[in-house]
């Protein structure tokens, strides 16, 4: 199990625990974390799982592939901490990761 802390746009903090191998998007959707839709179920087709990764964790993640980078190009509020939650697989190395969710996905 990997612990994930989601901090919502309004400051609400939620700590969840999820099975390794699931994605950050699945961790959010399975636990009803608002602000993450994941419409396409993780196919990197919709960009509705945009999250901001806490600076302390950013460089522990695998680099973005071209598809993810392109999908994010048009996401609202994109910055250097932006990732698509569906492309980040949780593992013990990410135990305790802190993620901020944007106001909305559209």
């Amino acid at each position, binding site marked *: 199990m990997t612990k994930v802390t989601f901090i919502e746009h309004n400051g609400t903090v939620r700590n969840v625990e999820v099975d390794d191998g699931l994605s950050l998007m699945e961790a959010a*959707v*399975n636990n009803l974390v*608002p602000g993450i839709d994941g419409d396409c*179920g993780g*196919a990197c087709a919709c*960009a509705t799982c945009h999250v901001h990764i806490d600076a302390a964790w950013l460089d522990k993640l695998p680099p973005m592939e071209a*598809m993810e980078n*392109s999908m994010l*190009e048009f996401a609202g509020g994109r910055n250097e901490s932006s990732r698509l939650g569906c492309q980040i697989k949780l593992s013990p190395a990410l135990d305790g990761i802190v993620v901020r969710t944007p106001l909305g996905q559209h």
Partner: protein
Amino acid sequence: MSRCPSASTLEAAPIVSETVIIVGAGQAAGQAVASLRQEGFDGRIVLVGAEPVLPYQRPPLSKAFLAGTLPLERLFLKPPAFYEQARVDTLLGVAVTELDATRRQVRLDDGRELAFDHLLLATGGRARRLDCPGADHPRLHYLRTVADVDGIRAALRPGARLVLIGGGYVGLEIAAVAAKLGLAVTVLEAAPTVLARVTCPAVARFFESVHRQAGVTIRCATTVTGIEGDASLARVVTGDGERIDADLVIAGIGLLPNVKLAQAAGLVCDNGIVVDEECRTSAPGIFSAGDCTQHPNAIYDSRLRLESVHNAIEQGKTAAAAMCGKARPYRQVPWFWSDQYDLKLQTAGLNRGYDQVVMRGSTDSRSFAAFYLRDGRLLAVDAVNRPVEFMVAKALIANRTVIAPERLADELIVAKDLAG
């Protein structure tokens, strides 16, 4: 709706005494359950599904789930524990046989009767069946449910001969998975090209060439008149009298909306259950969402029936909000995606009625966008490995933008700036 509390009273106190029954347990149903709780509905939720499984995603059925790379648990929209926490009564493997819109009751196939305050018809659709001699052949399958995939998987063995009837999204996605698994795949399509209902000839020809390069035989303008053979072998008979041997036949020839329950209850139906922009049917207290609805779309000034996950999710949200007295009218650009081999096709909008196609990039590079316009206005895009064009087009379509074709085609203008 008079029965709903106003939005202001809702903020003050959650609704506690009402019952919502959701008929169907697909993507729209699953979304509606989550949205009802998120919107503050605190009453009873009963989810009635004919399939004996919790709500799951259907798109992977013809992609990763078929290939065997995604387990069933990861198809679920929400984990089983969610339904307990959210206090949802799940009645799975149970069908609703009758709806009484006046008394607000449903009857289940086990004889029980349940009363509701609000009802959501999320009955989806079923695979259209072949109508020809041999349509009951044991080697003929359809692909719409997890159970369908279970029936197909055992026959997906390297070297087996697969005949796909229908060259739409589902057929081509199955072809891609099967070709990769080493089956000998033939696609039979009645129209002059594959994907004929949804793309222009140039995009269709591109997908045909990609499949042929992968070893798939594609035969267009070919009808199927029957299926012969015994349980050990199927023999697909074509309109020109040819017989094609197959170990496995899968027909992907469209979807029919499940409207029987609604129709029998006297709800207005017309190629789907007719709803307004808040997913209300013609009967008070009864809503509908997903593939089964015929709904208004403000962006295209028309009524549509869509077979798409995005539509199911958004209508699930809209219906849940409306049940809670919150008006959140549906206003969406339809979008779809398809994964085949290394290609990601993302389609935004609907191209029907287009009078011009503008290509950005070339099909040879396996990375291009086909923009569809009518009277200069952008209607739709098919983007192949072009996610930025897809995202930009979605915004342009929503705004009903008139745009110069030269700009769309000009690769010196970066895609992101097309919106500017």
